[in-house]
Every structure is written in C-alpha cells, then in structure tokens.
C-alpha cells in the first residue's frame, strides 16, 4: 500500500518540472505525414468504395506536402536536436527524408494502375505505404537505439503486409510470410544486441554510447561490446539483404506485387542502410577494430555472392533482387574505412544510397511498364522491346548503364565516391575492398548487359510488336527516376553539397 502511495506521489507534478519545449518546426515533416496517414484511414472508413479513386492522389499530396517543411528546414540549414538528442534534424537527415518521400511518391505512381487493375485491396494499400514511409522518415532522424527500433518496426510491419497483398496469390502469400518470419527473427537478434549494448553503453542514445565505448577500459577485453555490435549489425543486415542474411529477398521480391517489390528493394533497403549509418557513424565508429572487419566480410560476401547468382537468373525481378544484394555490398563497402576516413565514408554511403534509389526505382518502373504488355518478368520476354517500346528501352538502358557504372550517369559517381573513400583511407582493408569492388563491377556488367542485349538485339518472343499504351503515372515515374539518374551523374555537386556535412561529424568528435 505504501509503495503504491509512493508511486502515486511520483505522478504529482514535480515543482521543478516544466513541459519540454517541443520544436514543432523540426517535427513538422512527421506531423504532416502522420496527419495525412490518419486522413487516409478516416476517408476509407467513412466513404469506403467512393473514396478509392481519391486515395492515391491524397497519398501523393501528403507526401508532397511533407516536402514543404523539409524544404523550409533545409533552407534554414541549422541542426536541431530534439528529445534530448535522440531525434536530430540536420542536412543529412533532411536529404534522406526527402529521398524517402520522393521514392514513396514514385512508388505510388507505379502502384496506381497496378493496384486498381489487379485484384488488390486499394485503400489500405496507400495507408500502409504512407505509414511505412513515416517510419523511414523517422529513421532518418533517429539517433537513439529505441527510436531506431520503433522506426524500424513502423516501416517494416506495413511492408510485411504489402508483400502479401495479392489476394489469394500463393507466391505473394509466401513472399509476405517469408519476409515476415525473417524480419521478426532479425528484429529479435537486433533487440538482443541492443539490450547488450544498453548494458555496456549505459544509454540508448548513440552519442552517449559512443562516449562510453571510447573510454579506455572499454577498448579491449570486453567481449560483450563485440557481441552487441555484431548482433545489431546482423539485425540490420537482414533488412538490407546482405549475404549471408539475404535468402528471403529473391523469393519475396518475385512473389510480391511488383510496385511493392520496388518499394522493398529501394525504400526499405535504404531505410536499413540509414539505420546502419546511424548506429555505426554516430555510435560504433569508436571501435573500428570490430566494425571494419565485420563490414569487410559482409560487403565482400554480398557483392560477390549477389553478382555470381545474378549471373544465372532468368527472371528479371529475381535478377534485380540479386543485383540489389550486390549493390548492397557496394554500399556496405565504405563502412570498412569508418575509422580511417570517417567523413568520406559517410558521404559515400549517403550518395550511393540516393543514386541507387533513383536508378533502381527507374529499372523497376520500366519493368512494370513492360509487364503491362508481356505479362511476364522472364528476361526472354523482353526480346524485341526496342522495336515496339523504344522510349522505355532507352530509359531502361540508361538505368542499366547507370547500375553498371558507366559515366556520366549517377551510378558512376556513386562508385567513384565509394572508391575515393576506400582508397583515401590508405588501409589494407580499404585497398582490398576497392579491388574486390572493381572485379565485381565487371561481373555485374555482364548481366546488366544481358538485359540490354535482349531488349535491343533479340526478336520479340511471339513476334507481337504491337505498341502498348503506358499510363501517364508510369511514364512520370520513369521520367523522375531518369532525371535524377542523369542529374546526379552530370552535376554530382548537387548531392555532395548536401552530403558533405563535415560540421556534424566534427561536432561529434569523429573523423
């Protein structure tokens, strides 16, 4: 009884307590997005059938509306730290938020006809998509283990459902189930790692963890630190489908509705990377002796295994899944020099992430457009595409060339910045990584080229070369991705200006 009273007395306002000042401007993107998501749910509940047609437009408006506070924050340009440092709004996080929103916008453009014409629940689809994007937007600012975990679950759970969205489709259900089981398994490992990390780091905030881990007595002889870091990284490795935690990806990608696959392959993977950026570059960077070899193994395995398996794929979505695994390897590469070349590594990952989002999304957009005619995702079904869809063929060729790394397209600059980070570190691991990457770039060229070859040189499989009408939304999606791929390649200064956030890392004492 007395304990209960004591507990109750604690509920009474502490005389010294004042309501925390909330930086509404800093939180505005999340607020707008949440409001939009809530509106979608409400509209669906009230209007049901009649609202269907308005859902995609409303979802898109929400995403565009969210870009407005991001722009005002970017113009202001200051770094805002909310909730005691667990939520930080800085130029990098704004860039990533904007990326997630644009990716979401493009995915909705891709989905509109696909979902309306197929056998799908429509209204909930957009609600879930918006919710998942909200999780990603939060992730871009999260600098606290708990915040990261909440963001991760917020973005993952809708994605599990979306993967299984095709009603009664067995492959789609399998896709969702596999993704879900692997996802929760990863979450469990991640949580275990986080709890260990809380034990040794004495906080959930990453900057405090970094301080504690940097203390001399923590530098060696504390195996739990290693264990915690490995568990956390492995947890996210599932999310970014790094080898050997990639097995779910091809089946899920192939079975899920293609726009959802695009969403998973681009946005969800990017969110996983953002989480890795947060934990490594804001927390674990003080222990490069653990982080660097760990990421070396992950990166080498991902790019090599991903590429070698991609070589043998006959289904273009599966091929993109494996190529995405290999690309994830390229994005993991800069982590290998986190201790020696902090700033360059950080900006290389962010640059690669943004450019990868543009070019891979573009490739998926073209595949969705083509599948409207071919009703298939087999590589052979792309034969003769140039003769009846020349515009889409040229666009796809540009995306593939960019993924290969042909200048002056975006993908080239992404690889270039990774190489400069790796070689700039002047460590043996960095140089080894750069060479492995060079070899893998050539392997990847083969299967990207194979698609280009089929589209340009082969004949249409059944001789059917009647042109097909592509909806405006899809053309727009391809156009956005195309412009981004070209602009980031020709004027990479636009990206590096934002990604070169030296002050932030300097303030954190890294580098």
């Amino acid at each position, binding site marked *: 009884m007395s304990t209960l009273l004591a507990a109750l007395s604690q509920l009474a306002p502490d005389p010294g307590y004042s309501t925390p000042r909330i930086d509404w401007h800093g939180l505005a993107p999340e607020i707008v997005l949440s409001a939009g998501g809530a509106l979608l749910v409400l509209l669906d509940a009230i209007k049901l059938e009649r609202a269907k047609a308005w859902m995609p437009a409303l979802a898109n408006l929400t995403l565009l509306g969210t870009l407005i506070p991001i722009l005002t924050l970017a113009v202001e340009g200051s770094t805002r730290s909310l909730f005691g440092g667990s939520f930080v709004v800085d130029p990098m996080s704004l860039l990533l938020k904007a990326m997630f929103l644009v990716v979401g916008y493009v995915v909705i453009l891709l989905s509109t006809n696909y979902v309306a014409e197929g056998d799908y629940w429509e209204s909930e689809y957009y609600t879930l998509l918006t919710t998942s994007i909200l999780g990603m937007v939060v992730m871009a600012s999260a600098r606290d283990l708990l915040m990261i975990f909440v963001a991760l679950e917020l973005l993952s759970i809708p994605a599990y459902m979306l993967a299984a969205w095709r009603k009664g489709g067995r492959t789609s259900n399998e896709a969702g189930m596999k993704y879900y089981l692997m996802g929760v398994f990863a979450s469990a490992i991640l949580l275990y790692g986080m709890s260990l990390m809380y034990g040794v780091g004495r906080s959930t905030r990453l900057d405090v963890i970094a301080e504690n881990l940097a203390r001399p007595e923590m530098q060696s002889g504390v195996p739990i630190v290693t264990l915690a870091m490995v568990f956390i990284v492995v947890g996210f490795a599932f999310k970014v489908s790094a080898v050997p935690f990639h097995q779910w990806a091809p089946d899920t990608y192939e079975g899920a509705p293609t726009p959802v696959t695009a969403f998973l392959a681009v946005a969800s993977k990017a969110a996983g990377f953002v989480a890795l950026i947060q934990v490594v570059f804001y927390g674990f960077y003080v222990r490069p002796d653990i982080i660097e070899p760990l990421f070396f193994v992950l990166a080498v395995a991902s790019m090599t295994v991903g590429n070698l398996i991609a070589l043998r794929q006959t289904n273009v979505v599966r091929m993109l899944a494996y190529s995405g695994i290999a690309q994830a390897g390229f994005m993991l590469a800069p982590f290998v020099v986190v201790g020696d070349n902090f700033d360059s590594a950080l900006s290389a990952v962010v640059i690669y992430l943004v450019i990868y989002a543009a070019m891979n999304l573009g490739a998926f957009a073209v595949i969705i457009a083509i599948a409207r005619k071919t009703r298939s995702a087999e590589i052979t079904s792309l034969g003769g595409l140039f003769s009846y869809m*020349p515009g889409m063929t040229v666009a796809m060729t540009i995306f593939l*060339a960019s993924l*290969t*790394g*042909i*200048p*002056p397209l975006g993908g*080239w*600059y992404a*690889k*270039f910045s990774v*190489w*400069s980070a790796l*070689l*700039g570190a*002047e460590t043996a691991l960095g*140089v080894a990584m*750069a*060479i492995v*990457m*060079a*070899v893998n*770039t*050539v392997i990847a*060229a*083969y299967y990207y*080229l*194979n698609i280009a*070859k089929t589209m*340009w*040189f082969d004949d249409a499989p059944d001789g059917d070369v009647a042109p097909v009408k592509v909806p405006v939304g899809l053309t727009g999606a391809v156009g956005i991705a195309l412009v981004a791929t070209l602009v980031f390649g020709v004027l*990479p*200064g636009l990206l*590096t*200006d934002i990604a*070169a956030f030296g002050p932030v890392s300097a303030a954190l004492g890294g580098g």
Partner: protein
Amino acid sequence: MTVDPTLLLAADGPVTFPILPALILTPLLGALAIFFVPARRDDAFKQIALLTSVVTGVLSIYLLTAFETGEAGFQFVVDQSWISEFGISFHLGVDGISLFLVVLTGVMFPIAIMGAKITHDIKSYYGWLLVLMAGSMGVFLALDLVVFFLFFEVVLVPMYFLIGLWGHGDRIYAATKFFLYTMLGGAFMLVAIVALAILNQRGVGGDLTFDLVQIAQNQAISTEAGRWIFVGFAIAFAVKVPVFPLHTWLPDAHTEAPTAGSVVLAAVMLKLGTYGFVRFGLYLLPEAAHWAAPVMLTLGVIGIIYGAICATMQKDLKRLVAYSSIAHLGFVILGVFSITTQGIEGGILIMVNHGIATGALFLLVGWIYERRHTRQISELSGLQKVAPVFAGVFTLVMLASIGVPGLNGFPGEFLALLGAFQTARWWAVVAVIGVILAALYLLWAYQRTFHGPVTPGNEHFRELRWSEGLVIAPLLALIVFLGVYPAVMLDRMGPSVDALVEHVDEQVDDFERVEITYVGASDIPEPGHDDDSDGPASDEHGEEGE
C-alpha cells in the same frame, strides 16, 4: 548545333573561340538532334550525322592550322570546374601528341559515315556514331583524369550497340566480349585514378585534384605506389590497344562490326589505348613506365609477330585486316616504350597512318562484302580483271599498310624501329621480322583475291563507283602526302615529344636519354653512337646526345 563560321574567322589568337569544347559538343548536339527527329524521317538522319561530323572535321582541321608549331605545351586550354569537392574539372587541351589524333578522329568519322550503308534502325545508328565521335574526341582532349575516364568509358556503349545491332554473324558474342574486356580495364583504371589523386594529395598537400598536368608535374607519389597504379592504367590501355595477350576481343569485334564500326574501331578506338600509354604512362607515371618498358616492349614485339602470323593464316579478308592491326599497334608499343624522341614520334605517326590505311582497307573490304556477300578469300578471285580501278585503289592502300617507302606507313615504322634500336636493340631486331611478314600476308591475300582466274560469282564484280571513289579519295591523298612529306606532322609533334622525353629524363633517375641529332640527309645512325641520321623530320627540334 553548328558553329557560325564568322566566329571562327573572328578568332584572334587561339583562345577566343572555345574550339575544343566545340569539337566534343558538335557531334553530341548532332546526336541530340537525331534523338528528337521522329524515326519515320529516315532520310534526315544521315544528313544530320554527315553535317555535324563534317563540321567537327572542319573544326579539327582549323585546329591544325591554328596550332602553334614549335610550342611544346598544351594549347587552346579550357578549364571549367565540374565537381569542385573532388577537384575535378573539364580541363581540355591539345598538344603535338594529341593534335593529329584529334584531326584523325575529325576526318575518319565523316568518311565512315559516308562510306557505309545501313538498312535498318537508321536513326539509332547515326545517333550512336555521333556519340562515339564525341567520346573519342573527348578522350584525346581531356587533361583531367576523371574526365578522361568518363570519355574512355562512354565510347564503350555506342560501340557495343554498333557491333551488336548492325554487325554480322556472331555479332552479339563479339559485342559482349568487347564490352566486358574494356569494362574490366576501365574498372581497374578508375581505381588507379582515384588512388593516384589521393596519393598525390598526400604527397603535396593542398586540395584533392585530378588534373593530369598538375599530378604529372608533382610526381609526388612513391615509386612502389606509382608502379601499382601504372599496372591499373596499363590493363585498361592494353585491352584497348590491344596488347597480346588481351587482344582476343579484337578479331571478333572487328570482323563482326559493320563497316563503319570497323573503320572507326581501327582508325580511332585502338588509338585510345596507345595514346593512353603515351599520356598516362610516360607523361603521368614516367618512373613506372620506364620500369615496365622491357615487359611492354616484349609484349609489343610478341604482338607484331603473333599478329602477323595470325593474319597470314586467315581465310576471311576482314579478319586478316583485323589481325594486321594487332601487328601494327605492336610497332606503336615498341616505339613508345623505347622512350626516345624518334620512337615516340614513330609511334604517333603509326597511330595516325594505321588509322588512315586500315580505315581505308576496312572500307574496301566492306565494299567487297556489299558486292559479293562474302569475305572468304577463297571465294574471291581475279577481281583485278573485272574491276581494275578497285584493284588499283586496294593496291595503294595495301602497300601503305605494308609500309612501303613513299607511302604513309613507312616513316612511322622506320622511326619506331630507329628509336627502339637505340634503347632496345634486340626487340627492334625481332620486330623487323614483322615488317617482312606484313608484306607476306598482305601481298598473298592480294594475290589470291585480285589475281588469278575470274571464278564464277566474280564475273559481275562491280567497279568502284564514283561515290565510293569520292569517299576514299581523301584517304588516298593522305596516304601519298604523308608518305612523302611527314614533316608536316613531325614539325608539330616534335617539341611536345621532346618535352615528354625530357620530362621522363628529369623524373627518372636511372633513365639515360638516348637521342640522335638530325643534320644530314642520308646518314644511317650507328647504334650506340651519337650519330646523324636520315630523318624526314626537320632539324629544328634535334637534340644533342645521350
């Protein structure tokens, strides 16, 4: 799209008109124009391609006349910052080494466009050709490592499609092989470029820069690192040249490519590699180039002999010409890696003259194929009786390719051997065998194709058309003109080549400069001595001895 000619005339001095960007942008704008013209207007594409490539060609010839002879450094320099974070800029310039390759590009593309017919996908064909032209120009003009890499890789894509879409036979296999080989080299080169820039920055401090001239002047990296970086570059260039044993893509690509593709491949694309060795080997990494010289010389000589032997055994006329390219480019490698003024000058002369002669040979073989739909030597016979003018033209081009004195093939091979004899005597001795073999395979092929009885199928071999004659006439004129008067090239490249050898001499400790002075007309140099020599070059850039 085109450049107002009054602008050119108004150009007072070399800097007022940005001619180097214009050389790259003109074909690029032509490609853009083609992209936006609707596909049904089939007739427009060739005209756009011809117009823009001719304008580019005229610009390149104007460059030749405006070029300051006797000047060793880069001229018409343009430097426009591109990615300032990494110190990358569009730094373009031309010197005596790249000048003639630029002109070669400017001349060969219009001829390739005029000289070959295409029946399908006309729009993309001409579009890709113009992109290729812009890319090739860019490679020769770039003075920034990243910009160089950009153009070096960009040319891959149009060539891939040219071979794959309009080629013959096993075109897709050939195109893929070509792409992957070159891509392999490119990936290593990019790593080497990044490493070089970073090490240079560590060495001298200051901002990161990818500027070729600055890095070459600094020479701030360690010997060992320099050698590794050279290997990275060398793989890329060796694939492109191609140097034995990385040559296997070439016979396939050349044989299966459409005529214009073969012409451009032989005339321009192979030079990207040899030019790379001069500019990014000797100039950028002199120590490493000197270190690698014995290996490169050996590979060059193997290329000469191997290419010649393979060419002798070919049954397909086009494949024969393709293998002869391997032999000719072996001479370039031999000359360049002799690291003497004569050798490098000879190498550059061969680059240009091989471009002209082999380009012409591919055109002629292409026309034979158009007429007979075969390239098998065994199915052709007695063509001389049916088409004497055609045979005459073929003879002249073939003799130039063999290296008969008086035609343009000779001065280059002579100088390359002369240079090699001073510093790499035994390599030169073996390489001479290649000269004899060249006569063997080409004359033998000529004999089988043009002499002998007129076999069935060859009776109606059509004589050279006027239109074809007009296309090839400029090449024939160049073959004769550059054969009797190579000084027009040597005068312009001399100072730059001298400066290059001087640069190697300054930077490499154990390098001993061997030079011959030109005085008289007929003295044959005695090896090892500081003797006079015969040389078509004027005496103005002669350099005193060892």
